């Protein structure tokens, strides 16, 4: 499986709990789950509307908090936050799925917070163009 190029963009889909009032991104958007594999979507190849479709799919369990947007940052920027790395992790219905990996052990949560703060500060917020899923 090929490595994700440094300049490839990675998207993390966001809802209201991930955003501050000024629409800046909170660090909890990049805190890893217990598996220590943070899901992101690669989109260097111009996925366009299909990218938002994937976002709505991620948020399908949310009834009251619709998709607000996404946090974009490059794979190279993720790797600057050492020791993190971004690796392909295709799943059945999403060939563009990837993981941010190499998080410190679970008990060192303060390191997770420091890394998540760095990623959230580096990421760019892109607002979702629609307030409801298409079709």
């Amino acid at each position: 499986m090929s490595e994700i190029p440094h300049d490839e963009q990675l998207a993390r889909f966001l809802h209201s709990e991930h955003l501050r009032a000024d629409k800046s991104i909170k660090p909890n958007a990049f805190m890893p789950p217990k598996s220590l594999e943070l899901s992101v979507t690669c989109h260097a190849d111009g996925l366009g509307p299909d990218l938002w479709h994937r976002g709505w799919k991620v948020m399908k369990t949310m009834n009251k908090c619709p998709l607000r947007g996404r946090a974009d940052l490059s794979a190279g920027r993720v790797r600057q936050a050492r020791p993190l790395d971004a690796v392909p992790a295709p799943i059945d219905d999403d060939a563009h799925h990837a993981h941010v990996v190499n998080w410190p052990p679970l008990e060192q949560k303060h390191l997770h917070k420091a890394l998540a703060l760095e990623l959230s500060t580096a990421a760019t917020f892109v607002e979702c163009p629609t307030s409801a899923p298409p079709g």
Partner: protein
Amino acid sequence: MTPIMVATVSGLLAGTGSSATGTDGLFVDEQTAEVAEGLSRTESVGHGSTWLELERVVGSCGHDGWDGYGATAISGYSLTVAARLLFVLPIGVTAPTVSVDPDGEVSYEWYTSASRVLSVSVGADGMLHYAARVGASRHHGAEPFLGHFPTVILDLVRKVA
């Protein structure tokens, strides 16, 4: 919001730090706690907005998968510790905003800008994990919550807020 969660948020201050003995001592403690709780919940003097946010996140993060990526529902234990921590945040210190981490722990944030921000996660076990940016400096670490607001974290609050 579940009844248990409502009870947790509303009854969090019970048993906070009394050392009184005898009927009179207990009465004074109860009255003092009532006044302190009232002040703490006001917007102008205390941290009323944060109390409201705690109740809000119970509603929005109260079920597994609340973030779309499989996050754990907000932890009642973390919520209890978070409320006790808020109660001992000195009155007059800027109130934090509230987030929830994917592991269900409550997180307090003091945010002025991207270069002046402090985030503190409240562990169900009473550990406080924090990370901050203060200008070019970066800070992170863990402190136990022993019933008073940890000095290290309070110093960071005063630097970023």
